[in-house]
């Protein structure tokens, strides 16, 4: 049983603070994804858990042990690096067995565990090759194999898929998920790719500038972002943000266009308040080409500036109150620039954010 617990964890480089007192409880066998833009402190946080960076302040516990001052080798974790970090002068077999050998395991045990990991990851045929003779995906699998042979308390993944091409990334994402289902170990996974975060995580931790912005299940973070940063970071294409002012139960946009305040938020706003109306492209669709019935909506006639057909759907660029927004059209229909279509905004899934502090006005 090993969860991971971060209590007020800080990291400073001289006078520069990169992580500002993070608190996070990761349960045993949980798959947690730290996600955020570059420089948000997610990798530093992971490296502090691994012991590869000193912890300036706060405490890191793995299981029931305080590990602040333990070197990486005493933390019983394993890590998959962005560049795989396979030992180039060893073949796959030795790469996999290296940790066990260092730990002084008998050759019989090493062989057994290496074979077991190789079978799980489909590496049995490659054991005698060197890393230079492997493809990107195979190297990635060896790196994961090296992580699982030691039966660690936790796996740490540091952007493991960012060196792969898009197709392989999709495959490996699925393999990582399967691997987690098989070996059932606590996982902390760092990525800047919100798709990886959404698809892999039991819980997502969205970080920015060394702070945690939001922690929650993927659907929770997607459906109830706490601020505009999370709202635009999670979800692709990003959520549209339209500035406006509350006037007579409506959000009045810059050009005077009015959009009703979503029902569930009517009590959260007050007259004259500056807000940002957040609405995802999937929730702005030409009438009859949406994701289904909208319980609560409003229609706007908008001119298409650009359409990107993707087969069964098209991404449509248009503008509201002088601001470019993205919308979706579901179903195979050709749209030309300049066409005026009636778009329905699904307000039950729209969000309102305070324009001054960018916080969501939703009451949780």
């Amino acid at each position, binding site marked *: 049983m090993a969860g991971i617990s971060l209590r007020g964890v800080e990291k400073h480089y001289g006078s520069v603070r990169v992580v500002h007192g993070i608190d996070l409880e990761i349960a045993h066998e949980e798959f947690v994804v730290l996600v955020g833009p570059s420089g948000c402190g997610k990798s530093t946080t992971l490296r502090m858990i*691994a*012991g*590869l960076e000193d912890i300036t302040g706060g405490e890191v516990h793995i299981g029931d042990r305080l590990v602040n001052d333990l*070197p*990486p*080798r005493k933390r019983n*974790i*394993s*890590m998959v*690096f*962005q*560049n*795989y*970090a*396979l*030992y*180039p*002068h060893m073949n796959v077999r030795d790469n996999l067995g*290296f*940790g066990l050998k*260092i*730990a002084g395991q008998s050759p019989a045990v090493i062989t057994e565990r290496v074979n077991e990991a190789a079978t799980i990851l489909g590496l049995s045929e490659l054991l005698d090759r*060197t*890393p*230079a003779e492997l493809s990107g995906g195979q*190297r990635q699998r060896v790196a994961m194999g*090296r992580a699982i042979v*030691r039966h660690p308390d936790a796996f740490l993944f540091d952007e493991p898929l960012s060196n792969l091409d898009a197709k392989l990334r999709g495959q490996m994402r699925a393999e990582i998920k399967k691997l987690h289902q098989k070996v059932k170990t606590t996982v902390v996974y760092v990525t800047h790719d919100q798709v990886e975060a959404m698809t892999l995580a039991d819980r997502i931790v969205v970080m920015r500038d060394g702070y945690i912005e939001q922690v929650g299940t993927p659907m929770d973070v997607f459906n109830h972002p706490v601020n505009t940063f999370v709202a635009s970071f999670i979800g692709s294409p990003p959520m549209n943000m339209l500035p406006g002012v509350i006037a007579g139960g409506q959000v009045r946009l810059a050009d005077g266009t009015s959009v009703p305040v979503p029902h569930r938020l009517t009590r959260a706003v007050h007259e004259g308040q500056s807000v940002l109306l957040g609405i995802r492209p999937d929730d702005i669709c030409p009438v009859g080409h949406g994701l289904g019935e909208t319980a609560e909506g409003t229609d706007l006639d908008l001119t298409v500036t650009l359409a990107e057909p993707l087969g069964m759907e098209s991404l449509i660029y248009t503008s509201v109150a002088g601001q470019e927004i993205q919308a979706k059209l579901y179903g195979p229909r050709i749209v030309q620039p300049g066409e005026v279509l009636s778009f329905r905004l699904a307000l039950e899934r729209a969000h309102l954010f305070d324009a001054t502090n960018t916080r969501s006005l939703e009451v949780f």
Partner: protein
Amino acid sequence: MTVAMSRPMTAPTRPLKKRAQSAALWFTTFLLMVIMCVPGLWVVLSAFRPNREILAKPPIWVPTEITLGNFAKIFGFGAEQVGIPVTSYFMNSMVIALTSTVIALIIGMAGGYAFARYRFRFKGGIFLGLMLFRAVPGIALSLPVFMMWSRLGLIDTQMGLIIVYVSLNVPFTIWLIDGFFRQIPMSLSEAAQVDGCTRWQAFWKIEFPLARSGIAAAGVFAFLTSWNEYALASQVTRSTDSKTLPVGLMDFTAQFTIDWAGMCAMAVIIIVPALIMTFLVQKHLIAGLTFGGVKG
């Protein structure tokens, strides 16, 4: 069809031009190699010829008589002997070059690793200082070194020369080894530490084997520098206690004569270990140059 027809038309012209180019290239290479190699070859050739043939005018290009007499002479075998203690010089050279190389490599590995992996105050300044020190011509240091060594009693000792060579070689070994460690991703050492190694184990089991080619290259350069150095050695050595082979070469020049045959024989003795050394680590030198291709 068109492709098949157009081929025979262009085929004769292009290879001809290419062949001419390649011939010109080889000829130039050959010329350059001749210019570079002839003096060396002449030395080797002369080492196996009697003095009268070396001094013959006009020169005898193809030796008529091959002899090992020159070697026998300088090592004190045979009828004719030269009063030069070549064996002592050889031993001095070996001891001094090997010891200073080993020390320079140890310091170079520690220093190179530190520069490649750690952040510390004045890092850039110290590194630049080392490089600038290397830029000072050795001979410019000979007087201060001579004065210091004479006060410290290091004149005419192997230790004295070893210290000089270590200080000459360390900047270079640090610079070279730093470059090799820099090429090894940090994450390899980190992965090894996560896998259960101490930092020390991670160095010896992962980083050292990967940088071995570079370290070997640095070792060869350091050895050759020490082995071939003449200017400083001629200042701080006096007798068979410390004189090295290059300095010993001058023993063959007397006031009115130069024993070219003996000198050339000794030059061959100087060249051979350097050649063997380079040959042995050749594989590593090449591996060192192509290291980037095998990064994990």
